[in-house]
């Protein structure tokens, strides 16, 4: 990882990503349609008086329900008012009403969300209570009651509605702030002496800006709908033209002049759909930038390296003793890649070959991004979404695995090849008891009865050293410690007597004392069951503890492979050597501080 090279390599890529969100939305047809529609509707609202020469409120009772044409572009309504004039002015007032509700709720919700989220304490409790109170209020009843109290006014109703909708913004902002409040960069800013107001403005507001805009579009849709609904049932101010009011009039004349229903309906639908598509395409763009970032982390190492399988062959150490154990798993020239939206393939494994013999522990060691975990997942047939075996073969007991369907693989998974994951906590379904998660595969794979499966699960829990198997069986994952959860996962991995266990950094997430216990457990079980293990790790200590054979991975390929003993005794590839050099364990201690003046201060603070 030479710093300068990596930085300059990524420059071009970034220029594109930083380009403005709105500009990207304009490039996407849905976003373009949404933005154009919103702009047109806004223009109609702003320039309403210029779009018609008719007075929207002038009632010509000699000319009611006139058909479109002539003086009246869209005809007249039941009171003889010009429909086109009413429509453009209704656009103006309806949007103003919706805007009032949206802006008011955004101001109340975002402000209180920021304050409650950042400072917490009593304000947070009060706001949480008020929020649940307001959210439990049926909006329509409040609005009807409002009408009973203050009469039919558009602005009054929209003010009340704005308050009713504030929780939508409050909850969004509050959740975002609570998420960010715990971020280390906010702590770092505090330690750097940045004032609270400045932290909120710089670090927190930036995070909620885009979600607030999306929420605002959604709230506008709701405000338009509720306002039109109120108008439709005759509850809006009869003196102001609104879409809802026009619908009300048209609905009462549905049998005589059904076309009148179309205009306000079309405007309501157009405005709502435009705002909805705006929100959705903005959300898509945000997710896309988030997604690209994630994928890049994984693919980076491979992208920087050559993208074909050519490369130096690995350094192979001679066998120390001839093994007569049959080869269980043979991976040859494996290439794993992720399909990109532009049709290219980002390779993360670039031609890996390795073999695991029966009863042997094979260590696959490498740093992050080396492709070791991707290799393991492809053997299991469980590559993440978008990943696939692009070339090469995976032969297990004479069976080609890379071409099997997920359904066919399911018969091998668990029974023949099983898996011990890295993070114990996230690998147990939080909604089911540990027992039921153990019993389920035993019943499915081995076809045991419920009682036999339970007995077997209890035996396994005892076997992996859990002191109270019955209790663990009944527990939910969040009720046990990380070390215990890892024992449960090991029990699950050996539950159906597999021939090969793929262990993906099984001790990395654990404390070092727990790691030692788990390593002891793994070693004991491996000997007892004579099971083959492919041990993915970044820790040479773990390899030294468990493995018979090691393959060192870098940039998606194996650079050195051979019996563990011989590699530890004499690593030959420069990369392997550099890894050994970086091990601190045996390094010299730094020694005491060399300031003579300080030597006499008390150094024995321990109790």
């Amino acid at each position: 990882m030479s710093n300068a090279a990596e930085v300059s390599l990524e420059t071009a890529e970034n220029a594109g990503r930083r380009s403005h969100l709105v500009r990207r939305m304009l490039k996407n047809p849905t976003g373009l349609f949404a933005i154009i529609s919103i702009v047109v509707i806004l223009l109609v609202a702003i320039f309403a008086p210029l779009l018609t020469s008719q007075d929207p409120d002038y009632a010509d009772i000699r000319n009611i329900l006139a058909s479109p044409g002539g003086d009246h572009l869209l005809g007249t309504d039941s009171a003889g008012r010009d429909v086109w004039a009413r429509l453009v002015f209704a656009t103006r007032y309806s949007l103003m009403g919706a805007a009032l509700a949206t802006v008011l709720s955004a101001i109340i919700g975002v402000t209180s969300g920021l304050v409650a989220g950042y400072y917490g304490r009593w304000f947070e409790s009060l706001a949480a209570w008020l929020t649940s109170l307001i959210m439990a209020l049926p909006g329509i009843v409040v609005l009807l009651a409002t009408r009973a109290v203050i009469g039919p006014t558009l602005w009054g109703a929209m003010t009340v509605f704005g308050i009713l909708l504030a929780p939508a913004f409050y909850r969004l902002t509050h959740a975002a702030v609570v998420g960010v409040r715990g971020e280390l960069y906010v702590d770092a800013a505090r330690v750097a002496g940045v004032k609270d107001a400045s932290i909120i403005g710089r670090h927190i507001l930036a995070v909620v800006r885009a979600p607030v805009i999306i929420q605002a579009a959604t709230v506008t849709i709701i405000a338009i709908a509720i306002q039109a609904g109120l108008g439709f049932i005759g509850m809006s101010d009869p003196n102001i033209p609104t879409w809802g009011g026009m619908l009300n009039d048209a609905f009462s004349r549905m049998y005589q002049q059904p076309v009148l229903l179309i205009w306000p309906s079309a405007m309501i639908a157009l405005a709502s759909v435009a705002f909805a598509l705006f929100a959705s395409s903005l959300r898509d763009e945000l997710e896309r930038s988030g997604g690209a970032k994630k994928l890049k982390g994984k693919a980076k190492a491979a992208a920087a390296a050559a993208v074909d399988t050519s490369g130096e062959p690995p350094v192979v150490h001679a066998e120390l003793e001839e093994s007569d154990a049959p080869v269980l798993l043979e991976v040859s020239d494996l290439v794993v890649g992720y399909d990109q939206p532009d049709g290219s393939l980002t390779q993360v494994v670039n031609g890996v070959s390795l073999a695991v013999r029966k009863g042997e522990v094979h260590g696959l060691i490498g740093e992050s991004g080396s492709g070791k975990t991707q290799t393991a997942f492809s053997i299991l047939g469980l590559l993440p979404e978008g990943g696939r075996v692009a070339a090469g073969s995976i032969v297990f007991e004479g069976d080609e695995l890379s071409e099997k369907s997920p359904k066919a693989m399911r018969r091998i998974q668990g029974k023949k090849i099983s898996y011990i994951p890295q993070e114990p906590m996230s690998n147990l379904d939080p909604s089911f008891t540990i027992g039921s998660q153990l019993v389920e595969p035993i019943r499915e794979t081995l076809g045991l009865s419920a009682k036999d499966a339970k007995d077997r699960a209890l035996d396994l829990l005892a076997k992996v050293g859990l002191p109270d198997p019955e209790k663990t069986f009944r527990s939910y994952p969040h009720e046990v410690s990380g070390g215990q959860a890892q024992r449960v996962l090991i029990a699950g991995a050996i539950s159906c007597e597999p021939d090969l266990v793929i262990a993906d950094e099984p001790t990395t997430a654990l404390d070092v004392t727990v790691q030692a216990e788990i390593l002891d457990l793994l070693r004991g079980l491996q000997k007892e069951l004579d099971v083959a293990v492919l041990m993915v790790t970044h820790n040479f200590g773990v390899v030294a503890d468990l493995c018979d054979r090691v393959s060192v991975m870098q940039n998606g390929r194996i650079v050195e492979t051979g019996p563990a003993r011989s590699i530890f005794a004499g690593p030959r590839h420069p990369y392997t050597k550099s890894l050994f050099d970086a091990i601190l364990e045996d390094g010299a201690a730094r020694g005491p501080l060399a300031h003579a003046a300080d030597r006499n201060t008390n150094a024995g603070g321990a109790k």
Partner: protein
Amino acid sequence: MVRFTLRRLGAGVVLLFAISTIAYLLLYLSGGDIARTILGQSASQETVDLKAEELGLNEPLIPRYLGWLKGAVTGDFGRSWFSSQPVTELISSRLAVTLSLVIGTIIITAIVAVAIGVWAARKRGAADRVIQVLSILGFAIPSFLIAIALVNVFALNLGWFKPTGYVQIGTSVTGWLGSVTLPIIALSIGAVAAVAQQVRGSVIDALRQDWVRTLRSRGVRENKVVYKHVLRNAGGPALAVLALQFVGLLGGAVIVEQIFAIPGLGPISILATSQGDLPVVMGLVVAIGLIVVLVNLVIDLLQGFLNPKVRLS
């Protein structure tokens, strides 16, 4: 679990009390000359005064409110100022109609939304995008516009259903079905869109969890992984959205009932609020508030069932 339920119920009672107090206070302040409104312009001042006395309008706020509260606690919400019918009687029969619409909608929504949401989350690709666009449209277009469109197409043009009117389920089951089909469809579309979006999102999230890979690695069948494990974990957020939909649907029903001339809470709330019929408005506020509290309680209990962490804490 019992303590959890009791605490939630307690919070619900406080909420109901707060809502009704605020509503009463506001309605009292907006009072106006109700007695005159009831009797009409031609009535003499004497009869108007008598009416005011009869309705207790001359009493100060506190005793009036306490009187109402005392009745309300025992289930007696007084009589309508205009029709003199007991409020409890007036509301309960109509409440059943509205609830049957809303509950019917919720059931259909839950089934259809889960089916669509899970399907879209598993398929992704083009099918998913079509569903996405449809659900955006379904969410954006207000239910009463859909209702108007349905009336025009299926009732007026095709004549498959009667455009308006309501048949009691006791009178004729098929008649009842015919009278609620269009309203329920109109109400369901938006709700399905919202809930399906949530289901899709949480199923996709759940499918990305590490434990899904581990379950698969144990040889558990894919359908079991999805419908037993993933769906249960995705259920919480979906239920929360469903609860919000329920509250929203009560509002939507008021308007849709107006279109189909269904004698639910809609027409009566519109009438009572425009007249300023305080006992009826208060009855409606309490009735709907109570439903909301109960629905939220049921949802909380279901959440506890789905998520052991909620249950045990």
